[in-house]
């Protein structure tokens, strides 16, 4: 009886999964490109990209959240400093996607580990999240095209109140109840 029962199984690698991490970084890079209309905006998104990459490298949630926040801030800054509307809207989508996919990579890594086969789940999440973003972006840009003549302030106001109301409702909605809010 020597040490023959100890074999080469090391600790489980619980760092973020490769596929989602890569997709998250790609989304972050797209955000940086789309925000390259002002130095402040580009700086913020690049910093966000860096922090996000760092967070994925070390496998921690808080840098990923902060990185996502910086990406969003960069997009808002670009929008304020005169980026085209479509770039701003798409940039917001990619920024939120980067945060979403990064968090997915972390969660999968933590629960299943990097070695486990998870690509089909990751791809499905990525496609679904991207579809949600595009599903909002395309109609929004379309409505804007249609009404590009003279947007009546009253209509904009009405729509804004709708958005605000929906935020209030959504914040109260319980994802556990599983019913449409």
């Amino acid at each position, binding site marked *: *009886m020597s*040490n*023959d029962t*100890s*074999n080469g*199984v090391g600790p*489980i690698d619980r760092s973020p999964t490769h596929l989602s991490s890569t997709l998250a970084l790609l989304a972050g890079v797209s955000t940086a490109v789309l925000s390259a209309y002002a130095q402040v905006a580009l700086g913020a998104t690049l910093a966000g990209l860096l922090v996000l990459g760092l967070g994925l490298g070390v496998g921690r949630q*808080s840098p990923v*959240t902060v990185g996502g926040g910086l990406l*969003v801030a960069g*997009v*808002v800054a670009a*929008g*304020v400093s005169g980026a085209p509307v479509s770039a*701003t*809207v798409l*940039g917001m*989508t990619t920024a939120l996607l980067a945060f*979403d996919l990064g*968090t*997915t990579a*972390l*969660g999968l890594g*933590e*629960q*299943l*580990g990097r*070695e486990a086969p998870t*690509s*089909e*789940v*990751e791809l*499905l*999440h990525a496609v*679904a999240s991207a579809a949600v*973003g595009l599903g*909002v972006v395309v109609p*929004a*840009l379309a409505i804007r095209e249609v009404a590009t003549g*003279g947007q*009546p*302030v*009253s209509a904009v*106001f*009405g*729509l*804004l*109140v*709708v958005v*605000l*109301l*929906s*935020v209030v409702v*959504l*914040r109260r*909605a319980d*994802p*556990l109840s599983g019913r*449409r*809010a």
Partner: protein
Amino acid sequence: MNRRRVLVAAGFGLFAVSLAELVRPGVSPIPGDELLLTAVGAVALLYAVAAALTRRRTGPERVETPDVELPEPATVPGDDIGAVLQRFPGAERVYAGAGTSRRNGLRRAAVAVLTRYRGLEPGAARQQVAEGAWTDDSDAARFLADRRLSSSLGQRVRRFVAPDSGRERALDRTVDAIAAVAGVQTDEESPGDPETTNETGTTHLAGKTGVRRRTRHWAGVSVVVLVCLAVGLLLEEPGVLLAGVVAVGYAAYARVGPQTSVDLSAARSLDDTEPDPGDDVSVTVTVTNEGGFCPDLRIVDGVPESLAVTDGSPRRGARLREGESVTFSYTVQARQGTHEFGPTQVVARTLSNSTEQELAVGQETTVTAVPPLRPVQESVPLRRQPTQYAGRAPTDSGGEGIEFHTVREYRPGDSMARIDWNRRARTGELTTLEFRRERATRVVLLVDARSTARVGHDPGAPDAVERSLGATQRVFPALLSEGHQVGIAAFGPAECFLAPDTGTSHRQRGRDLLATHPAFNTDPGADGTRHTWGLRFRKQLPDNTQLVLFSPLLDPRVVRVVRTLEAHGHPVTVLSPDPTATETPGQRLMRARRRLLVTDLRQTGVPVLDWPPGTPLEETLKREVATR
């Protein structure tokens, strides 16, 4: 709930009216005013600030999955110096009424090793400790001295700058000085990497099965919406406003993702449920979806804590449509004993990642590995205690046998074959040759299986109980084939006794008992070995039975048990797998304590075979036979 419905209805109405207004301006009764827009922006900003402030400062929450791949590592004895000191043998009464402080404990330990290894009287030893004359190490000497000894300038400076670190350092050096008196050197041998300690999950599915939980995956997205609205309105940037709408989309996605009830079943198959220890067993798991679409299933199979996964992964991520199933397989290395696969743990998430549900599916599977008996190649040094049965243990009396013993006068009735005919021819005297009589003995192999024995010199290596069991499995058949009656018993909270006997079926019974009896193969947890254990054990023990005890000899109790058994006429031989290490001061102190116990036992005439890790059992036995 009602208020929410009203809000939703109002939202939809407003949405329709505004759309109509976009297409044909003037239909809406809503007043249009730039000032109102700014006001909405301000409200949004305020709401954003409030939401950001009241939001819980926690990131996403996830169900944790255990490290099922790794077997539970052995603990190295001596993690807690205080605990080692508390049960340090000997010298208990030297410091009457002394407190239980660490310093007093160390004083007691120092006196104990000084009396044992330097031959000092307890009084003299105590005086040496009090005066600091017992060691060359000035830090150690000062630490245990009764009064302050003069210290060097450097030591004073160090004490002034970092009083705590100085104390810790003195403590460590004192421990090492004590261990050195007992012959334990710093890093005598370096057992493996101490960094390999892993937390393995002992809690499979802690009672939360089936409960759906929020993951807070999208925490913070509504703040993004509000910030976009506020910035967009206040700075009049339509792009930022629309970006806010995108964020609303994600917030809605997070909240209203499709929910279906999860209904899964799992089946597990092993290619061999009764392998030999060390064999690779391939495990195949199939998880089938019997409910609606499951976009994200995170599956972790319930590998027994005692088994290590050697190939493949017991984890799998899968998406399953209705009726679909996923199959994956991995390999575990069988270890002796009975191991139970728990149910498969599944974490089911929704598409949006916003909720997850933990499930335990499938049943338990049992795998039993019984090792073949591989007799040890050396003879086991037993104590002399013959029975009336013929066997191979040499005795001190003459008679029939092989080895020459004595010559004596012929007595009528002596066998013709044993008469020394050469002498008869030479001198005419009739003499009879006496041979060393060989007799069988009755032996019970006693294995120390208490939880205190479940320690090893290295977290990755087998612990002392496993090594004891391995040795028992080899000694048992060896003694049987030498003609002894051999029994097996466990020293621990669980009852296990196989009375000494011989024969093939007894051999088989012993083999199964060692491999599968829960007394050996499950950690009893807190040491619940009753104080009456010795009494009950002696009642079961037949007369004229000797014992071979397999124990790491880590606590005084096992020494007391040995002494009691000796006193009741049961000679004991101890085979002791050494589980101590020399990595930290506590571990070195533990080694010193164990050495003290070994010395004590040897002084009372009990042979102790010290079995260091990494050496074959045969070598230890050979050394013992050679020194007799």
